[in-house]
């Protein structure tokens, strides 16, 4: 069973390849019911996962699905197909490999269900969809192995939870199924092993030699980085020099917007016209595929990219990885660095390019952490129930099910091992009745119990809509962008919220080009080419990464130093300037800065309590400010500070920090807040209360969108204990709200609150103004601004004079 076919060994030999020890070990342990391989990137991890499959299939090929490979990225599935195809073809093995993702044509998908290949490469969402078909039991009956690649990336998300529920399903259909997980280096292998194995089975863990330490440095430039901003434009010449010095460079960014801006600037400075591409998740598929193909062919010298290239895609000869912007998270940094020098036992080479001076401090802290092998990560809680609701609906699509059996299946998934029957029943009830306190009518029953006790869909036609909404990825809603005119070229996607703010003539960046907004047609953003050198508006937002707590602790410690020999002079000077014009955060005290900026009053609270706690602090302080009539308009939180803006200046922060009053309204205020509504929206989509897709397209115009905010408000009012409200609170408590850390912070600082009233933005506050994820507060400020605008407009149009109706009253402070 564990021997490789001779033809494959020959093929290896002609290439001069030897099996790594961990690849050998995977063959030796091929019969383990579940096995987790931890190996650094470039260690031939994926091949190690497939070797037992190749051995078994070469020995006794039989028709039907043998191995299912699941990866978090579509691109990865395509890439593996290519890499696996070569040895199979050249060693003449009778093995058929196919991929199946959202991009696979429908005709091939249909054929795959009737006649599955030996090895099917897919994504968690496509797998969930496969298990929803009535013929799933036929397709998976002979399944021997499932290989989950990059399981560390899935383990932290709902996609992973959904995948593990699908595995539980597969295990029922194919009881002898063996599970294999492939993971990059992680801090806690046992946790991933628990998720992978069927609960309560044990999971074997195989750790490969981690290889040499990476060669990683901060890029030092002549020009100092700016105080704030994420563009890193200052570093363009230095980055271009590095690109010229290397064969292929990957330039990672934390957000798509930053990648677009950087690519644009890089292109403007690229006088030698080096072939440089851009790759991120919002680009049109054809465009992404072109870049991927060019890269595999070795035609590109550099690719500006985001997390879409984060995971183990084998892009040939990458010999340098550049990370622009602070890495935010040491674990991810190490995994990204692994992209360079895809040869085992050769150190990876990477450069960090901080985008502003605060990020210089963050980068230095991250480098120290990498040297000390201090990987970060917060353990996630138990499996979320919105995913469970979706899974119940998926099960119902596949055919009538028995609730007891489904429950037993679910608790065999590690993340749901602790799920009580009562909590499961609540999810079942949600699917069956909508879960409303009000008595149920037929129309809210999605599944019904038959006389024989089995559950089935009330309306079989519903299965199509359920399938269309499978998945847990919570991008905000996006709109497609296309060149104007008949058959205009698709360019990619932008967030709906960004598109809503555009007026005709506005320019923005997408796919490295500047385009002009022409209008919205049938929910497609139409644009034309524009020759402008400078886009007027920053582009869409992208993902927001949190700095890990470990990193922010390191940063506070650095702030307390007398001097900073480890930092570049410009950054040390910048910290000294902060100390001169305001002050640096100190242990046992709370620093607050207040200054006018951008037509608003700004308040910065440096709590260094981590993003969740700082976010909660933002929620609570704005509540107190609203009570005090200070008209707050919104806030944004980072791991080290909360920035609040509003109409009035805060002159005495002490009343705001009255713990009793802070806590008094916590529940009520949290319940009505934008953060909670955002959480609700995500869970409502996953659980199937709201539908993203109806009939394949989204409608536009009146009554088209059922606003999730309004649904949330109504449920809060009439049915606050509804399952979706419970889930929203659970999600919030899972990390969103870290009230204990605020209490602890208040206890630590007591009344030692230092308010610095200043005339302008301080060095330390500057980066906060470009932080994404701003939370609006809609309260008295809206009314005051509206009054102001109405008065202005009426004065301007002269209406105020000619109108006979009562004039708007003066603003009344509330």
């Amino acid at each position, binding site marked *: 069973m564990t021997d490789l076919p001779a033809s494959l060994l020959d093929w290896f030999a002609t290439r001069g390849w030897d099996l790594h020890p961990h690849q050998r070990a995977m063959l030796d342990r091929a019969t383990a019911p579940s096995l987790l391989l931890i190996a650094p990137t470039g260690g031939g991890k994926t091949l190690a996962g497939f070797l037992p499959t190749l051995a078994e299939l070469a020995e006794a090929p039989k028709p039907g699905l043998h191995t299912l490979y699941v990866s978090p990225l579509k691109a990865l599935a395509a890439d593996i197909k290519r890499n696996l195809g070569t040895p199979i073809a050249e060693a003449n093995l009778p093995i058929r490999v196919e991929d199946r993702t959202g991009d696979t044509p429908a005709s091939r998908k249909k054929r795959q269900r009737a006649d599955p290949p030996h090895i099917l490469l897919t994504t968690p969402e496509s797998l969930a969809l496969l298990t929803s078909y009535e013929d799933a039991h036929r397709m998976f009956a002979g399944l021997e192995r499932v290989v989950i690649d990059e399981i560390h990336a899935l383990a932290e998300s709902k996609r992973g939870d959904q995948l593990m529920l699908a595995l539980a399903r597969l295990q029922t259909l194919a009881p002898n199924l063996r599970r294999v997980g492939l993971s990059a280096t992680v801090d806690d292998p046992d946790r991933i092993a628990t998720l992978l194995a069927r609960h309560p089975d044990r999971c074997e863990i195989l750790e490969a030699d981690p290889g040499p330490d990476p060669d990683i440095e901060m890029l030092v430039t002549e020009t100092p980085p700016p105080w704030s901003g994420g563009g890193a434009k200052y570093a363009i010449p230095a980055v271009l020099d590095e690109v010229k010095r290397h064969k292929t460079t990957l330039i990672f960014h934390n957000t798509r917007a930053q990648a677009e801006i950087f690519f644009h600037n890089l292109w403007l400075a690229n006088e030698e016209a080096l072939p440089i591409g851009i790759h991120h998740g919002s680009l049109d598929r054809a465009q992404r595929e072109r870049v991927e193909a060019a890269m595999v062919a070795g035609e590109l010298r550099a690719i500006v990219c985001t997390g879409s290239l984060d995971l183990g895609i084998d892009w040939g000869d990458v010999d340098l990885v550049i990370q622009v912007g602070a890495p935010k998270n040491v674990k991810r940094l190490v995994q990204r660095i692994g992209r360079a020098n895809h040869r085992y036992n050769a150190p990876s080479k990477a450069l960090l390019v901080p985008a502003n001076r605060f990020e210089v401090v963050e980068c230095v802290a991250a480098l120290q952490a990498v040297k000390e092998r201090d990987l970060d990560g917060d353990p996630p809680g138990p499996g979320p129930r919105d995913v469970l609701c979706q899974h119940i609906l998926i099960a119902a699509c596949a055919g009538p099910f028995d609730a007891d059996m489904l429950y037993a299946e679910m608790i065999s998934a590690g993340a749901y091992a602790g799920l009580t029957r009562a909590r499961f029943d609540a999810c079942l009830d*949600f699917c069956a009745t*909508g*879960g*409303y306190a*009000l008595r149920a*009518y*037929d*129309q*809210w029953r*999605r599944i019904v119990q038959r006389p024989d006790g089995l559950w089935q*869909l*009330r*309306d079989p*036609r*519903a299965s199509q*809509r359920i399938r269309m909404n499978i998945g847990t990825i919570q991008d905000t809603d996006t709109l497609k962008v296309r060149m104007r005119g008949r058959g205009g070229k698709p360019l990619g996607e932008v967030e709906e919220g960004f598109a*809503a*703010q555009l*007026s005709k003539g506005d320019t923005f960046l997408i796919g490295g080009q500047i385009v002009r907004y022409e209008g919205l047609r049938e929910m497609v953003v139409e644009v034309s080419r524009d020759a402008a050198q400078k886009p007027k508006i920053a582009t869409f937002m992208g993902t927001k990464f949190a700095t890990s707590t470990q990193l922010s602790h390191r940063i506070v410690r650095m702030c307390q130093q007398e001097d900073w020999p480890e930092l570049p002079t410009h950054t040390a000077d910048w910290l000294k300037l902060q100390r001169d014009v305001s002050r640096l955060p100190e242990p046992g005290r709370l620093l607050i800065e207040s200054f006018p900026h*951008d*037509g*608003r009053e700004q308040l910065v609270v440096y709590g260094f309590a981590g993003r969740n706690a700082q976010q909660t602090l933002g929620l609570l302080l704005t509540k107190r400010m609203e009570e005090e009539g200070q008209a707050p*308009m919104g806030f944004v939180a980072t791991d080290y500070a909360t920035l609040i803006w509003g109409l009035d200046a805060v002159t005495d922060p002490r009343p705001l920090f009255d713990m009793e009053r802070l806590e008094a309204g916590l529940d009520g205020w949290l319940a009505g807040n934008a953060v909670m509504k955002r959480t609700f929206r995500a869970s409502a989509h996953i659980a*199937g*209360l*709201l*539908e993203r897709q*109806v009939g394949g397209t989204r409608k536009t*115009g*009146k*009554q*088209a*969108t*059922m*606003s999730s905010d*309004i*649904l949330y408000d*109504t*449920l809060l*009012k*009439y*049915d606050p204990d*509804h399952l979706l409200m419970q889930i929203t609170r659970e999600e919030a408590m899972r990390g969103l709200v870290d009230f204990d850390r605020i209490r602890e912070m208040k206890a630590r600082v007591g009344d030692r609150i230092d308010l610095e009233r200043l005339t302008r933005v301080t060095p330390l506050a500057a980066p906060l103004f470009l932080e994404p994820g701003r939370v*609006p507060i809609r309260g008295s400020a*809206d*009314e005051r*601004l*509206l*009054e*102001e*605008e*109405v008065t202005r*407009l*009426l004065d301007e*149009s002269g*209406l105020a004079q000619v109108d*006979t*109706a*009562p004039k*708007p009253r003066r603003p009344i402070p509330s």
Partner: protein
Amino acid sequence: MNRLAFTFHGATLEALGSGALYWPAHGLLVVSDLHLGKCARLSAGGGAALPPYDARETLTRLATDLDATGATRVICLGDSFDTAEIGAVLPEDERAWITRLQAGREWTWVEGNHDPGPVGLGGTHLREARHGALHFRHIAQADAHGGGEVSGHYHPKARIALRGRTLSRPCFLVDSRRLVMPAYGAYTGGLCTRSPVLSALMDADAQAILCGPKPARLPMPRAQQPRRRAS
């Protein structure tokens, strides 16, 4: 008080922050596009299971406005029910609730495109209603030469920029001839005043009255008007 008084076609009317219109001289409260039963319709197809509380929410608002104004006459200006059939299958306690609101009031259902024909509840059913110099119909007529037309149907919603922040609210639209009412029902969504349809319908001097805690009046934001930037 949460009202804004204005004159339209010689009548002094009050726009309520909730989206209702009150005419004190006639003791008349007008509400449009209640869309009762909308969630039930959307949930019926086996799709999303939207909360069935929309009718409660809408009727609670209506009861509050009736109390506050002491109105003796009510006009529901069409699309009161999301489908004509829903009026008949509305849950018993919601039907009873409507009957309680109707007690002692002259109640008129004007038919809309969603609910043509009688809806199986008390009150008068009309295609159009008339009080004083004002006409009440669901959809504005293309030529409103007579003037004084009050209609609904479009669910107008205004979006305005306030020093860099955008505010979007249901609104009344009013010019010298027409008054278009916002949708009163919960979960009803809206059509932006900048849409070509509304921009073409309303005269150049049209104003928008925004619903909210304090109704506010301003020139109607329109399609052709270049967008104002926050300064």
